[in-house]
């Protein structure tokens, strides 16, 4: 259960502004792959994710899901194939974890087709996968940060899509919970074979999780390659503007930042 994403010549612009935030982006995501989008603030990662999620209409170019333009797919059909978790989702007060997770089944229900057994089993398996059975009756606002993040992930999982798009799923979590969430993501890929595209800020985490990394720089794709090819002294200097060294292997890279540095490429 996975699909390929293909991005061709994408120019993105927020409505009401006159500047392209992302310019001429071309990128392929193969089925079942984990791709991390990294880059400094304002480099266009989240905007790109919004375009992949069929939320922002490209000014030029197209995003294709298994060869089909995402804007030619109906909203509901698309929601059955691609799920997206924004950076800071909001739940209304008084909503329980279980009710939240059930919201993920919206696209699978119709005006006439109500709650069915496969909906119930999808919710159940999402709750189990995210280890939320104990807190399913609690309201979302009473959960701890880590639990809350898992609850949102469970909602996205219950959508049973082929592609998951996650915007900084570990922001605001402590080291332990961050590790847990990343571990869960790896497991989701292994068990469900979904294609995962996520925005991550921490380079070393991205290197550990991703099959390939897409480095963004000033609204353009700087490099799209394996973690070991991406994370090197040159990238860190060109894109992040730091003089840093990397040690350790690609599985657990160590990042030591020495000083800010001037980029040598005038991109």
């Amino acid at each position, binding site marked *: 259960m996975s699909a390929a994403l293909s991005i061709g010549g994408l*120019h993105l612009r927020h409505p009401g502004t006159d500047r*392209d935030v992302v*310019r*001429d982006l*071309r*990128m*392929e995501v193969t089925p079942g792959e984990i791709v991390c989008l990294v880059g400094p603030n304002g480099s266009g990662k989240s905007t790109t994710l919004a375009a992949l999620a069929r939320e922002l209409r490209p000014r030029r170019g197209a995003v294709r899901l298994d060869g089909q333009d995402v804007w030619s797919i109906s909203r509901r059909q698309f929601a059955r194939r691609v799920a997206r978790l924004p950076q800071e989702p909001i739940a209304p007060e008084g909503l329980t974890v279980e009710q939240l997770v059930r919201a993920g089944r919206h696209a699978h229900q119709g005006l006439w087709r109500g709650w069915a057994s496969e909906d119930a089993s999808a919710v159940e398996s999402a709750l189990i996968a995210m280890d939320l059975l104990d807190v399913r009756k609690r309201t979302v606002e009473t959960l701890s940060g880590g639990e809350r993040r898992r609850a949102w992930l469970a909602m996205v999982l219950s959508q049973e899509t082929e592609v998951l798009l996650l915007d900084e799923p570990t922001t605001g979590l402590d080291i332990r919970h961050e590790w847990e969430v990343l571990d869960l993501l790896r497991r989701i890929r292994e068990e469900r074979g979904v294609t995962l595209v996520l925005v991550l800020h921490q380079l070393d985490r991205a290197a550990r999780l991703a099959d390939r990394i*897409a*480095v963004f*720089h000033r*609204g*353009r*794709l*700087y*490099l*799209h*390659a394996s973690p070991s090819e991406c994370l090197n002294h040159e*990238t860190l200097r*060109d894109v992040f503007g730091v003089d840093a060294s990397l040690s350790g292997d690609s599985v657990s890279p160590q990042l030591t930042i020495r000083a800010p540095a001037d980029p*040598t*490429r*005038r*991109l």
Partner: protein
Amino acid sequence: MFQTKPRVPTTTPLSPEFLRWQVLLRNHTMQERNGAPHAGVAPLLSVRRAGAKPAVSTHSIIVGILPAAEQLERKTEEFRTLYEEEIGHGSRALYDRGIEYLKTYYRDASSFDPHSITTMLSTESPALVGLEADPQCSLIFYVFDLDEKAEWGRFRCLQLDCTAVVHRRGPVYDNVWWHNALFHGKEDGMAVVQFLHRRTYDTRFGRLELVT
């Protein structure tokens, strides 16, 4: 509909020494500096502003040179092909391939247009607005580096009086735009300025000496 062909302003060729210097400098930039511009390609542009005070505004710009007229469109096509081939691998790969290509591109002064110098400006920039109001302008080159012993780093102070022609489309625009795209990607809202050379002064030590 009633457009007449714009009158081509009178122009004289750049001094052969200047053009050779520019080509050498660009070759050095690609070979040794990974594309980072040298002071020799970053002159000051001084634009006259009728009725305003001060009556002249100066802008720091980066300039380029054009391939000779008969090669212009072929070179543009080469830039474009290079871009299309590499952009899918990310802008870094494109940049690296671009540098690789330009190392051999800037070699022989005779394959470049001896009449003009080019630059790209944002359509909203005050420099462009000024040039459209009054195309007579000057480019001031200033290179002074005691540590630089090579020929391109020799002490130079030059003032080039030029006539600016603004391009928003056409072969000149395409050439400069695609050359720029190798480094900075596709950019909208830009105009290309072609500075047609009229005369050059050597201004070292406060002189104003016509270069022939």
